[in-house]
């Protein structure tokens, strides 16, 4: 086994996904198969290989420190499922 149900439950919590016991079981099986397949990467010796984060070598993409007007408040809140006055409203945090 590459991954256990307990690990899947932990990952689901990190990812903020409410999963049923059946889903956890199902994902455990599927992720296990995928991870077993992915394991083939370990056939390769990559000891001295630089990791690639960007395929095109680039750097120093910057903008000037200039201010633009933001979005009108109606547009800021237009898609929000919960609002009050000018705020996004969420279940109480503490």
């Amino acid at each position, binding site marked *: 086994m590459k*991954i256990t149900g307990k*690990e*899947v439950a*932990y*990952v*689901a*919590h*990190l*990812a*903020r*996904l*409410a*999963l049923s016991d059946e*889903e956890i079981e199902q*994902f455990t099986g*599927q*992720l296990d*198969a*995928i*991870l077993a*397949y*992915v*394991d*083939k*990467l*370990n*056939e*390769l010796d*990559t000891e001295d*290989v*630089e*990791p*690639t*984060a*960007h*395929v*095109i070598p*680039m750097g120093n*993409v910057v*903008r000037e420190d200039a201010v633009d007007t933001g*979005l009108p408040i109606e*547009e800021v809140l*237009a*898609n*929000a*499922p*919960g609002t009050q006055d000018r705020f*996004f409203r*969420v*279940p*109480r*945090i503490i």
Partner: protein
Amino acid sequence: MDLFRWTIQEASAAFREGRCIPAELMASVNSRIEAVEDKIHAYVSVAGDAAVQQAASLSAGNEASPLWGVPIALKDNLATRGMRTTCSSKILESFCPPYDATVVSRLRGAGALFSGKTNLDEFAMGSSTETSYKGTTRNPWDLTRIPGGSSGGSAAAVAADACVAALGSDTGGSIRQPAAHCGIVGLKPTYGRVSRFGLVAFASSLEQIGPLTKDVTDAAILLKAIAGHDHRDSTSVNVPVPDYPSLLNGDVQDMRIGVPQEYLQVGVQREVREAIRNALDLLGAAGASIREISLPHTDYAVSTYYILATAEASSNLARYDGVKYGYRAEPVEDLLDMYRRSRAEGFGPEVKRRIMLGTYALSSGYYDAYYRKAQQVRTLIMRDFEAAFDVCDVLLAPTCPTTAFRIGEKVNDPLQMYLSDIYTISVNLAGIPGISIPCGFDGQGLPIGLQILGKHFDEATVLNAAYAYEQRTDWHGQRPAL
């Protein structure tokens, strides 16, 4: 005459010559959509009469633009101001962005019209459009089969003449694979060639927006319109954009074409292999020099891709939390409950699976074993292509190992589904451009795609090789009976 069958060039010529006006073409496309949409379900939303009105009120200012008045379909993961952008997900079902993707504003600027937003696998995660919350798109060539994915809606719409051309996005083959399955042209540009601003992110380091069209010339026209540096995308590269359409001459004399031997091995459908061989013979006869080459790390591409893409996705999709926009589960017990249930109810199974895989790959203790390892193998895969392009101008391969599979066939076996992307995925890992063009049909009348790959920023050569093939065949002229 059925105006909706036109290509971009045909429509543009008709407008120029005064044979037709944009509102007529738009209306014709709309009637075609109405006629075929029940069968193929390519669209998530259509502009309808509003687009005809817009066509009628198009200012004549940029008639010189080849896209002026031309109805284009947009994959529904491209932000459109004031038009819902859902990614075919429940979590964004009602989301209406207050901004346009850069490609969308460029097309608006060129005078293009939008026929609607096309279906995709949820958040572009899939190879069949079966993961769409909005239902599966059907392959116009065989309605029991998938159109490919994730840009399946765009590909089906183009193949069914339910738009003149379309935009899609390609993270691991999502333009080329559906183009192949639907018998049309699909181009994934070099990473950084086209701005990603406004493309709802799945895997940021891999994806590009590109055209799906009825022929190669249209792809060249559409690419020219959307390509170029954008200060809003830090990864967009500031290099000149050639005038692609004018560079198409069909001349492949002395062009060095490499054939990666790994792409024609076991698992490739016999008819696909034959079609590729025939294409090679044809281009060889046209003056190109053909040689076998090797991309030794091909076998590792799917693994590498599914670690990197899902890791990025797990982070890119964290913003769907039910706070600022999108679906929120109600009522909830508390904040944690809101997060967990909004996301569990808002995302479909494939998206959740990938978020899980990606979260795992980045989690404490596993980063080096999975993420860093995959980034290192990505380097090896890039080096394979660099070596190949030392001796070749383009590479030629099948787009997919098989023609379109049946709806439901792979839906319960994610790994098999992932493996169907085996020939398109490396291209995204290396960031190089690739095109898929029609190159024949199998015994069941399903289209086969030929893939041509080029060096970074050398779309011109890729397009010209494709054009050379297209000039000498008539596959691209074939349309499904609907």
